[in-house]
């Protein structure tokens, strides 16, 4: 046992207490909350078999309460999780998190404070520069220090897709706002689709690009920093070690300047490398290491190693456990930034590693020698008993993860029995000592511990041989390994029984599959010690935090009795079995081109409007600001089409890098069941989350109203705006309020029919936010309609010039609706096709157009009356006579009936019965030629004409 001396800096003393608080109880969160803050120093030490000769100079001082509380789930992470829960609407998850997490989301605040004294100050700008920032979660009292040069995750618009950046500068401006200057890294998803092709290789999800695009603001608010993360620079040809594939760390191979990808310049590369290395040297005073930690360090290693070893057997299981572990260890996220400071002292470094909650590939970063040394220490210090395994198993059982147990047991056996695992072990070997995660889900932890223990021994054996062991040579030491396992386990057992074990190994590892190749990778970046914090899981996985039983939860099979809608149902219409027929004749071709759905090459006659909208959006895009524009016009005047065309052009421009890229989303008031669903749709289109309307409103407000660095501008088209009207108008208010927010970067194009909609239906506060950027689409004139048809037809010679003119004039006189115009032309083409079935090569002439227009615009009433039966016609006459007699345009059936009978007598016809008359009346009423009262009044039912008397007379006269 080595005596570990390390300089304890101010703030270090919070470590012990935190370590101690981390108990095994599944309810550790609760427990933590209740713990008294200041602890006597004696409480800090383990009373275990291992003595802890650690110098602890500050132990007598009363520690500030804030330091004493152990890390707990950082609120930001919790918030994310909360969202996920809701988004999945998964009751069981909500249950899991409701006690702690949801509260956290609402209550806990994260406090950002500077670390150290200002290093530099600028009098003129009144800025103070710092070299680190402390992030403290108020509720959990957990804090972390992020230094200059660290890589960080920055909140993005999508909670599950934070941005990656490197911290370049930290300063406080005159207004006491904390700022950070960062170097961005772009994830592949942030790079435009069309540019992704330029890479010509497959990009792993872990790869990021050194971002040289100038468009983004590199000055961000410190409050948006979530956590630190690890970014490894790699040569272009290098592969990310496969064993790190599952890890949430990043690698950077190329830079991206908005136009093309370039390999990292040697300068950048070395800078990045340095950044990683530097962290070793930076003293991290906040992570003080307690003796107890040191004791348990060996144990932790074992756990780590063990878990990784088990993975070899059942990779999927491992991944799952990893997931669950990472997810459940809520506190981990913001916590991971502890930087190793123990250069002289291996254990110290170990501690640091322990702090990181991730199953990240720290191992890579570590110097091999240190590891071996550590392992040796561990071996010396521990007595191992095989019984521990059983005990562990029990523990896991309590935690209700039976599948894991069996699996772990299997693995144990295999570790003991077979030499094949050696390679795996060797891979894990280097990693394990450092993977000590102080916080994690209890359940997972227990499992890991047991497994870790097994593997660790193996590692130790290997370690004792030589750092440069080849796979084969490692294999030879299997026997020794297995014997050691027992010892290791016993140690664990002992420690646990004393309840002094605080660090929970959260996880896991995909280390198991480490190969020689990976090894080489590891060795090439040995100094990196940054804790690669586990990146937030992908949206999908985070949505199902399988806390209880990782093996079971992901697939939540519906109960047999209660069928539920398949969650993953893909909306799809079956494909047709026969291919669609291609147009065979000129007329058919013309008909297809004239269909409203056909997207024309250009939008003629809306050039001015197009330019106005384009300029508006373009200027906002370039400025990176937000704004609203209201577009009005009667239906069929090309509002939506023009806006879409503008968006298409803008997208083309961004592809050509003339404009910063933006995100385009569209909602349509008519396609919503309720105005509040607008929130849901916008959020889903923006981030893919599915939540309830109220929650979506909150999230969106959050998104648009808080400073979001590096967020693309959003262009939102709101079609049929008037349908978003509610009594309180809160939907409209929010929509138009967001763009006015400083950081929203939201451009809204609102489309509706009426020009005075803002004045008519909106409250003042809404219409004032909408602003005065308005545009009105006038109905098309006949010339414009003519041009539209001609441009659609392009070169297809199917219409006579005069015919086109006739349609345009007719439609322009009626409504100016381009849809109508196209429909008439299409119908005319059909009529032409019909009539010319024999004689081919007919083109659409005036007569066809006239026929089509007649069909579409002729009033049906006159035809309907002419085709009515004789008594129906007489009934009309009787109505007219009665109206004339009374002088009022309303009569009862009885009155009309008498007139009817009189008329029948005059014509010498058999007069109908009252029942007949009522039936006639009902028939005409159903066609809405007449308007009737309810039929319960029988003879006293009142009758009115639904058409003018003149029309009726005209229709009856010709007879």
């Amino acid at each position, binding site marked *: 046992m080595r005596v570990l001396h390390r300089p304890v800096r101010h703030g270090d003393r919070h470590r012990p207490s935190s370590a101690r608080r981390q108990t095994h109880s599944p309810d550790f969160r609760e427990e933590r909350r209740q713990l008294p803050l200041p602890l006597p120093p004696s409480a800090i030490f383990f009373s275990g078999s291992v003595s802890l000769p650690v110098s602890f100079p500050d132990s007598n001082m009363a520690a500030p309460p804030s330091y004493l509380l152990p890390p707990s789930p950082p609120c930001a992470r919790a918030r994310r999780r909360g969202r996920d829960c809701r988004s999945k609407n998964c009751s069981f998850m909500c249950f899991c998190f409701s006690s702690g997490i949801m509260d956290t989301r609402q209550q806990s605040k994260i406090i950002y404070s500077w670390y150290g004294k200002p290093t530099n100050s600028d009098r003129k700008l009144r800025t103070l520069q710092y070299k680190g920032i402390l992030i403290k979660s108020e509720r959990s009292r957990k804090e972390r220090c992020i230094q200059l040069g660290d890589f960080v995750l920055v909140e993005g618009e999508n909670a599950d897709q934070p941005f990656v950046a490197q911290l370049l500068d930290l300063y406080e401006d005159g207004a006491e706002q904390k700022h950070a200057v960062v170097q961005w890294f772009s994830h592949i998803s942030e790079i435009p689709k069309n540019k992704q092709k330029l890479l010509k290789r497959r990009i792993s999800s872990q790869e990021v690009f050194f971002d040289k695009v100038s468009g983004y603001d590199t000055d961000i608010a410190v409050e948006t920093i979530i956590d630190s993360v690890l970014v490894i620079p790699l040569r272009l040809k290098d592969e990310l070690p496969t064993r790190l594939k599952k890890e949430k760390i990043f690698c950077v191979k190329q830079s991206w300047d908005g136009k093309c990808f370039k390999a990292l310049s040697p300068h950048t590369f070395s800078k990045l490398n340095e950044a990683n290395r530097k962290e070793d040297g930076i003293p991290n005073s906040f992570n003080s290491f307690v003796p107890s930690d040191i004791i348990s360090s060996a144990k932790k290693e074992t756990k780590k190693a063990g878990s990784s070893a088990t993975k070899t057997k059942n990779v999927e299981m491992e991944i799952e456990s990893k997931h669950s572990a990472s997810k459940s260890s809520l506190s981990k996220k913001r916590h991971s930034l502890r930087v190793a400071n123990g250069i002289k002292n291996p254990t110290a470094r170990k501690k640091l590693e322990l702090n990181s909650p991730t199953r990240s590939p720290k191992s890579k970063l570590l110097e091999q020698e240190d590891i071996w040394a550590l392992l040796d220490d561990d071996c010396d210090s521990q007595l191992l008993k095989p019984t521990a395994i059983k005990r562990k198993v029990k523990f896991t059982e309590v935690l209700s993860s039976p599948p894991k147990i069996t699996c772990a047991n299997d693995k144990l056996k295999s570790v003991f029995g077979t030499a094949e695992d050696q390679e795996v072990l060797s891979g894990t070997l280097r990693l394990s000592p450092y993977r000590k995660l102080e916080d994690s889900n209890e359940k997972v932890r227990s499992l890991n511990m047991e497994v870790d223990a097994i593997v660790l021994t193996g590692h130790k054996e290997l370690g004792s041989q030589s750092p440069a062991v080849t796979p084969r040579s490692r294999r030879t030491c299997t026997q020794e390994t297995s014997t050691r396992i027992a010892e290791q386990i016993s140690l664990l057992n002992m420690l646990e029984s004393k309840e002094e074990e605080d660090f929970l190994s959260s996880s896991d590892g995909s280390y198991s599959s480490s190969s020689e190749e990976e090894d080489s990778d590891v060795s090439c970046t040995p100094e990196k010690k940054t804790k690669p914090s586990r990146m937030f899981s992908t949206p999908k996985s985070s949505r199902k935090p399988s806390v209880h039983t990782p093996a079971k939860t992901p697939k939540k099979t519906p109960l047999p009795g209660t*069928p*539920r*809608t*398949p969650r993953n*149902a893909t*909306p*799809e*219409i*079956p*494909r*047709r079995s*026969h291919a*669609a*027929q291609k*147009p065979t004749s000129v007329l058919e071709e013309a008909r*297809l081109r004239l*269909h*409203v759905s056909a*997207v024309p090459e250009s939008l003629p006659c809306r050039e001015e409007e197009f330019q106005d909208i384009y300029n508006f959006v373009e200027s906002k895009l370039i400025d990176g600001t937000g704004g609203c524009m209201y577009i009005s016009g*009667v*239906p*069929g005047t090309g509002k939506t089409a023009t806006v879409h065309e503008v968006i298409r052009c803008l997208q083309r421009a961004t592809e050509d890098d003339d404009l910063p890229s933006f995100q385009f989303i569209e909602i349509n008031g*008519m*396609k*919503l*069941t*309720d105005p509040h669903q607008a929130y849901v749709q916008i959020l889903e289109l923006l981030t893919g989350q599915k939540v309830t309307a109220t929650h979506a409103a909150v999230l969106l407000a959050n998104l648009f109203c808080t400073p979001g660095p590096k967020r693309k501008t959003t262009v939102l088209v709101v079609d*049929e705006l008037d349908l978003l009207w509610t009594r309180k108008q809160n939907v409209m208010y929010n929509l138009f309020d967001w763009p006015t927010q400083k950081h929203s970067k939201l451009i809204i194009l609102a489309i509706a*029919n009426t020009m005075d909609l803002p004045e008519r239906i909106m409250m003042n506060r809404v219409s004032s936010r909408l602003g005065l950027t308005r545009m009105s689409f006038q109905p098309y004139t006949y010339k414009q309609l003519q041009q539209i048809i001609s441009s659609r037809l392009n070169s297809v010679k199917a219409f006579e010039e005069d015919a086109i003119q006739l349609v345009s004039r007719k439609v322009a006189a009626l409504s100016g609706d381009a*849809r*109508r115009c196209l*429909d008439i032309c*299409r119908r005319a083409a059909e009529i032409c096709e019909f009539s010319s079935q024999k004689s081919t090569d007919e083109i659409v002439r005036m007569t066809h157009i006239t026929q089509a227009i007649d*069909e*579409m*615009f002729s009033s*049906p009433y006159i035809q*309907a009356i002419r*085709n*009515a*039966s*004789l*008594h129906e016609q007489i009934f009309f006459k009787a109505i007219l006579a009665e109206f004339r007699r009374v002088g009022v345009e309303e009569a009862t059936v*009885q009155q009309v*009936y*008498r007139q009817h*009978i009189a008329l029948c007598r005059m014509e010498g*016809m*058999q007069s*109908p*019965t*009252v*029942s*007949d008359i009522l039936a006639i009346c009902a028939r005409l009423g*159903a*066609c*809405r030629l007449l308007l009737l009262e309810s039929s319960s009044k*029988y*003879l*006293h039912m009142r009758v009115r004409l639904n058409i003018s008397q003149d029309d009726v007379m005209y229709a009856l006269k010709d007879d």
Partner: protein
Amino acid sequence: MAVTQICMTMVQKMLRERLCHHRAMGKLFGIDQQYKHLLELLKQTTVCGESNSALIIGPRGSGKTALLNRVLKDLREMKQVKENLLEVHLNGLLQTNDKVALKEITRQLHLENVVGDKVFGSFAENLAFLLEALRKGNRTSSCPVLFVLDEFDLFVHHKNQTLLYNLFDISQSAQTPVTVIGLTCRQDILELLEKRVKSRFSHRRIYLMNSFAFKQYIRIFKEQLSLPAEFPDKAFAQKWNSNIQLLTEDKTVQDILQNLFHYSKDLRSLNFLLMLAVSNVTVRHPLITASDLQEASKQYRMDSKANIVHGLSVLEICLIIAMKHLNDVYEGEPFNFQMVYNEFQKFIQRKAHCMYNFEKPVVMKAFEHLLQLELVKPIERPSVRSQREYLLMELLLDNNQIMDALQAYPNCPTDVKQWAASSLSWL
């Protein structure tokens, strides 16, 4: 005898099916133009994947559904179309709101969110799902969907016309090819559409107007009754058909048909009349006769209220006559029981020798019976405070009906008849 029995059963079955069951098998009369138009329209959708929308408008009983069914039947027989068309049938009377309609659409399309035969999830989810499904498709590769909206006018009253907007919008944009066919009897249907919905509707309207003359009507009559050539018993079929031929030339039959034609041109009423006549055919009475048709016509066009009057007692008839006189005197103003009773008393006093003077409560009872038969109707709802005698009423019978009924009333006292003819007869 047994052979005729079988023949009769077959005739009954065949003709009744033809007359009642207008599913696809019914022949179409006088709507060849519309048939062609609709068939062409649907062919374009299925073969070329062209989206469309159309309304079939016509009065009730004019054959809208029959036309559509016929077109669909013919369409399905085409090789190109067979497996290429998804049909969704909605009825405004069944799908009373968009939520229900959406579920039904989803169910009929067998989208993936259908569990068993049920659709769960919220309205918003279902709408989003369906729209997403339809948006994903394109003209050339997706299976065309035919939406048939029966009682189209009822869909117009759904909130915001969301369903119609979306269906028409899809039909006018480059998505899954859809054709929306609406069936309605309302001539003013286009005025009911919201302006945005209207703009998206293609304005194709197919009118069914019953625009045939009486000659065609006779021909339809003949064809509806004729037995087909494939009828097993050739001899009987020939006999039957020649009888039908004779009937069409018969004057009485022509008069009956003329009357019906003048009354209503729709074929449903003709079918109903023929149905009544065909039902009379038995083994003993194997052929339809003119009198059968006459009987059926009488039955069909009977006045319902006058029929009720036939079953009234003399006292009740007297009360009705009293009311009639009151109506004449006060020009249709409402009356109450007391007025009717007084009027009745006047008559009784004049003709005391032939009419028994009923007590007032008895008269009241008779009056209430009329009320129950709905021959008399209170103008306002009876309230606790107002006495029954003074409740204002109006008569739901026309003078003509009363006189006609009295003519047919068995054993009606002459005095009553006279009184009915003129209230002044006592002078």
